[in-house]
């Protein structure tokens, strides 16, 4: 396997993986097919998707230790596979459940990256969002079977190709960026600090993200340097709250007299 991968050029692996991903997504997306055709295209799409995932993982770099690599691989595969399942699931209920699993994977990736507060906050914040989503699905979804619009897609082939082209370009750019020296050297990077090419003089506010008092430092940064932005975010939340209540109440006030007139 490894000499086969080594024999191919990275560009070939990447384009093959991206093409397999596009084809797999096209097969997996709902296209109005039923019964046997649907099962066959689902299995084919899953196989192609796993192929694409293996190809993309082959373009990744080795992280170092086996344990770290295993943990990162596990959480990222959970995130990516359940993200794909969110997109291709017919039923919105299953899509919401898969999205919750994708969030768990993303939180794991954030924890591996050293963002402890954000890893936990993602789960806490989005647990409520998922609950609301569930309530909406239960309120609005069709009780009997899937709706016709859940079984078809808008231009599935074009959408999958768009996503694949975007992913290929992003992967190329990522490989180029992370191979070279850091683009922005305003703050000394960890790599540069370790290699000693640059004096490791971190400002007191911008401490190491892996420090023990992680949350305290993040809070100091948030409420120190970004205090104005926090206020603006609070204002944004207030405006969104007021706006959504206004839209809901105006909608019902508009529709109630109209219904009354129609009845009378």
């Amino acid at each position, binding site marked *: 396997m490894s000499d086969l991968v080594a024999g191919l050029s990275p560009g070939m692996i990447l384009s093959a993986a991206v093409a397999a991903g596009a084809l797999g997504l096209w097969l997996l*997306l709902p296209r*109005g097919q039923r019964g046997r055709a649907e099962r066959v295209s689902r299995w084919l799409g899953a196989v192609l998707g796993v192929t694409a995932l293996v190809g*993309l993982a082959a373009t990744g*770099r080795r*992280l*170092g230790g086996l344990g770290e690599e295993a943990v*990162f691989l596990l959480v990222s595969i959970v995130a990516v596979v359940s*993200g*794909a399942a969110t*997109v291709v699931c017919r039923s*919105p209920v299953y*899509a*919401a459940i898969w999205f919750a699993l*994708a*969030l768990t994977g*993303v939180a794991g*990736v954030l924890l591996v*990256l050293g963002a402890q507060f*954000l890893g936990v906050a*993602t789960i806490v*914040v989005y647990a409520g*969002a998922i609950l*609301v989503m569930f309530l*909406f699905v239960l309120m609005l979804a069709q009780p*009997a*079977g899937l*709706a*016709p*619009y*859940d*079984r078809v*897609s*808008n231009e599935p082939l074009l*959408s999958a190709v*768009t996503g694949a082209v975007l*992913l290929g370009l*992003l*992967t190329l750019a*990522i490989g180029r*960026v*992370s191979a070279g020296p*850091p683009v922005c050297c305003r*703050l*000394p990077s960890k790599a540069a*600090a370790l290699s000693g090419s640059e004096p490791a003089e*971190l400002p007191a506010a*911008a*401490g190491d*993200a892996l420090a023990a008092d992680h949350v305290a*430092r*993040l809070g100091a940064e*948030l409420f120190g340097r970004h205090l104005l*932005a926090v206020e603006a975010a609070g204002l944004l*939340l207030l405006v*969104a*709250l007021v706006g959504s209540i206004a*839209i*809901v109440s105006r*909608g019902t006030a508009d*529709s109630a007299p109209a219904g009354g007139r129609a009845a009378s």
Partner: protein
Amino acid sequence: MNPAALLHDALLVGAILFALGLVGILARRNLIVMFLSAELMLQGISVSLVAWSRHHGDWGGQVLVIFVLTVAACEAALALVFVLQAFARTGRLDAAAWQALREANLPRAVDHGLPAVDSLPLTFPRLTPAGVLPETDDELLQREHV
């Protein structure tokens, strides 16, 4: 842990999540699934931002992700209100129910080869025959379920 490799792999995961969310929001027609796809794109962005934050050893990316969470909460509130209103007006969670808002030169999207309702066979409980067969209201049974 190799920092450059960690950055590369995390950015790759973020890019994959973003591309998947893009495909979902382009292809799917259920408004709730489209909303979930938008959230998936935001998750990809968050992973990329935290990866850069880790790479540069500063807090900017993580602070930005906190604001992304805030804006996502606002977006969720407004989007769900709009979904609720759209459902109240059309009885469907279908994005194509609003295709009257499209540009004048674009063709109308038509579903091919789909029956109007999911043609699951209607099953009734087996009861001892008694009296006359009740009349079933065909229109009521065949109506699209809301």
